[in-house]
Structures are given as C-alpha cells and as structure tokens.
C-alpha cells in the first residue's frame, strides 16, 4: 500500500559519513555553500524519516526521506569534490606563481651583480625574497589566500625595484653625451701630447691606462658603495664623475689602502654643482662637499665598498704607479659606451 516501509537508516548513516568526510576535507571553508546545503539536507531527510516513523505502520512512507538522504549524500560528496578542487587549484596556482617569483628573483639577483644601482635597490630584492619564503610557510599551513597575497607582495617589490633601475637607466641616457665627450677629450688630449691618462668606467668596473690615445692596460676596479650616482656630498658613498688630475702620489706606508693617487676632487664644476644643489634644496644646508678621493689599493673584494674612491688590487696599483704621477689626467664616467 505505502511506498517504502523500512526506515532508511543506512542512507542516513551514509549521508552523515559523507558530510563528515566533506568537513574533514575543508569543505566548511572552501565549499561552504554546498557544505551547508548538504548539512540541511541531512537534517531534512532525518526529520522526514522520524516523521514517518511516528505514523501508523500502514501509513508510513520512507521513500521521500530516502530520496532526500540520497541527495544529501550526493551534495556532501560534491562539497568534498569542490573543496578538493579548490585546494588542488589553489596549490597549483600558488606554486606556479611562486615558481615565477623564484625565477624572477634568480634572474634579478644575477642582473644586479656588478650593477651600479645594486646597493640602492637590493633591499627590494630582499623584501621580495622574504615574501617568497613567507608564502611557502603559509602554503604549507593551507593559508591559500594569504599565501597568494604574499606572492603578490613579492612581485610588487620586484616591480618597484625594476622601476627604480629604469629611472637610473633614464638618468644615464640623459647624461651619456657628457660622458662620451669627456672620454673623447681625454683620449684626444693623450693622443696629441703622447702622454699617459687614466679613464675610469664605473658601469664596467674598469680603469683604463692609455698613452698617446691608445689603450695600454685595463684594471678591474671597485667604487663607492653607492656607485650609481654622481657624487653630491661627503658621505653619500658615490664616486665622483668628472675630469680630474693626480695631485699627490702616496707610496707604501703613506696610505691606509696600500698605495694611493690623490685626485683634485672637488674641482671647479663640482663646487658649482654642490652649491647649486644646496641652493635648490636637493641636499642639506649642512652637507659638506668632501674630498680625499683617491685611486688606491686593497681592492679585489668583488663589490663596491669605498666611500667614493676607486680601489684596485695592490698588484695593479704597483703596475699603475709605474706609469703615472702628479698631473696625469683622470677622467671618471658612469658609462663610456663607445670606448674602448
């Protein structure tokens, strides 16, 4: 007479188990809507089963309860699947984003080695690396949204770094004609006089010894820890750019850095620029112009570390000092793209 006479207890247990599994798979967090529907369906099916149990035997019909509980089972399974998919996709997505960030970090690290702007921008790189490491811990703790946010923060840091490097490059482009002129004038004057001259190229980390306009020797060089700029004031860590000459030779025992060749920084144009920068408020009114810029020994550290001097290895200082002396022109440029 009636549809189904036996209470669908097995269906109820099966739906409850499926719901429990969904909860264990993180469905409350990652598939909440579906999980809540499954939860409601279990309750609804359970109540319907109870309602039928209360009726007199011949009037009982457990079929609707069984249908609801079957639907609850399917919905709970769907919640499990949704949560698993979310977790799988999130993990894959974040891993992919992290892989990109990691390769960008490696590429930039390599690109920064030896770059003049390195010391100015490296903190962005470090911030990005910290974000990368944090994202790994967050991912392991299944904090997907936070992990993605952290990866985005890392990318943002690298973006800021790239923007800063571009700004340096643009600054270089606007000044390259001046450096080209200084180098050409120095080479030409050496050629005309047949005498020695020194040209320092900061971007190549090299010092060139020339005679009669011809390249005689090349020395690896290190500069101030802030080499990407023209020197603006004492203590800024920048190596000055300009046309100078040697004013003093310091032999062994007269220099803290093995041997040294003192140059006439600040020259007249350095002084004009310094005063102008002060007047325009680019530098503090209390700033000092500095001095004691030398080509000295104790180099070979593989990084820019001086306060603004040019550092060579002691062996190279010995070599250089054999050929040059007081009065030898020293031209320092940030970049000399057409010479040697």
């Amino acid at each position, binding site marked *: 007479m009636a549809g189904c006479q036996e209470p669908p207890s097995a269906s109820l247990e099966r739906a409850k188990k499926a719901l429990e599994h969904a909860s264990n798979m993180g469905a409350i967090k990652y598939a909440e809507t579906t999980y809540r529907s499954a939860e409601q369906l279990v309750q609804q099916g*359970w*109540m319907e089963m*109870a309602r039928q149990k*209360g*009726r007199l035997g011949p009037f009982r019909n457990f079929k609707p309860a069984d249908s609801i509980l079957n639907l609850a089972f399917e919905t709970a399974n769907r919640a499990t699947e949704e949560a698993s998919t979310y977790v799988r996709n999130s993990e894959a997505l974040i891993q992919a984003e992290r892989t990109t960030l990691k390769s960008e970090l490696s590429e930039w690290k390599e690109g920064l080695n030896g770059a003049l702007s390195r*010391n100015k921008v490296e903190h962005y790189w*470090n911030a990005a690396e*910290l974000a990368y*490491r944090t994202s790994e811990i967050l991912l392991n703790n299944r904090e997907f949204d936070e992990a993605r946010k952290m990866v985005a923060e890392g990318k943002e840091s690298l973006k800021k770094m790239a923007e800063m490097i571009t700004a340096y490059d643009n600054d270089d482009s606007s000044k390259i004609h001046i450096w080209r002129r200084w180098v050409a004038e120095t080479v030409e004057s050496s050629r005309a006089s047949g005498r020695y001259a020194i040209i320092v190229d900061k971007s190549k980390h090299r010092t060139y010894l020339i005679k009669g306009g011809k390249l005689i020797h090349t020395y690896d060089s290190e500069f101030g820890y802030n080499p990407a700029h023209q020197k603006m004031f004492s203590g800024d860590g920048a190596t000055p750019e300009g046309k100078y000459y040697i004013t003093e030779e310091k032999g062994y025992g007269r220099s803290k850095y093995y041997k040294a060749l003192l140059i006439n920084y600040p020259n007249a144009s350095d002084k004009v620029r310094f005063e102008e920068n002060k007047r325009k408020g680019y530098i503090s009114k209390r700033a000092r112009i500095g001095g004691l810029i030398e080509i000295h020994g104790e180099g070979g550290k593989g990084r820019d570390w*001086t306060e603004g001097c040019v550092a060579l290895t002691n062996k190279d200082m010995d070599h250089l000092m054999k050929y040059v002396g007081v009065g030898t022109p020293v031209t320092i440029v940030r970049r000399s793209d057409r010479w040697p």
Partner: protein
Amino acid sequence: MIQRVALVLAAFALLVIAGCSKAPEAEMQAANNAINAARSAEAEQYVPNAFRMASDTLNAAMAAKNEQDSKFALFRSYGKSKEMFIRAQALAEEASAKAAEEKERVRQEVTNLITEAQAAIDAANAAYAKAPKGKGNKAELELIKTDLAGVAAQFEEAKNDFNAGKYLTAKSKVQAVMQKANSITEEIATAAGMKK
C-alpha cells in the same frame, strides 16, 4: 462506586499521558542556542569532532521529537527527546569550552612565537649595532639596516593579523620573520668572524 473509581483512574491516566506528551520546546530552544553559540565560538574549525557530536545529538533529539509529533496525541511521549536535547545542550556547551581552550592554546603558541621573534629581532639589531663600522662595511651595513626595517614591517603585519584573531596566518608570518632575523644575525656574525 466502581464506576466512579474507574472514572478517576481514567482521568489520572489521561493526566499522566498529557503530562508526558508536552513537547520539550524549552529544552530544544536551549540546545539550539548552545549549538549556535558553539558555532560562533568557531568550534567547527577548532574542535570539529566535539561540535559534530553535539550537532548529531541535537539532530537525533529533533528526530525523536518529530517522531512523537507525528503520533496520535494520546500516544506521544517526549521523555527520550527531552533527555537528548539536554544532552545536546551539554555537548554543545562542552564544544564551546573546548573550542575556546584550543583557540587559547593556539593564541598562546603564537604569543610565545611573537616573543621569540621579538628576541630574534632584538638580537639582530644588537648584532647590527655591534657590527664593525669600518669603511669597507658601510655598504653591507646599509643593506642590513634596510633588511631589518623590512623584517620589522612584516613583524608588525603579523601582529596585526594576531590582533585580528587570525592566529594561523600570524603564526606563519612570525615564523618567516624569525628565520630572516636569525639569518641576519648569522650574516653579521660571519662577517665579523671574517674580519678578525
């Protein structure tokens, strides 16, 4: 006389049945409130098994009540469902208490981690202050200084997460902060060792 006695007994029996047939509405409401309170206490996340047990008991109690509701009035008996509602309420309250305990345990764990991270940052700052300030170190020191500032910023972010109750997020960030602070201290120590 016998007729009268029979009538009194029947009336008494009806009273007994009527007494038992009163639905446990108050108990059901109390159990529901306790479950909602447990949910608000994040028992589902922090103590899922305890919450599930309370929730299942409530559902079973409601099913038992539903079964009785469906019966003819004279045959209803809510004694069993009433007991189950009371049990569900107790289990829900227990789940709430356990959730609070677990949350407090995690909070305490992160609090300790924050103290440890602060100590690691202090150690890094102290190492930085004592680092040799020679001419050749200035570039490195400048970089370490900005690194320390980055670490401090992330530490603040982690503390904000902690204050917002996002303990697990805070924990991950604090762990990363500690690693970085320790690596800075190590870097300075290595550099100082090389100088000697």
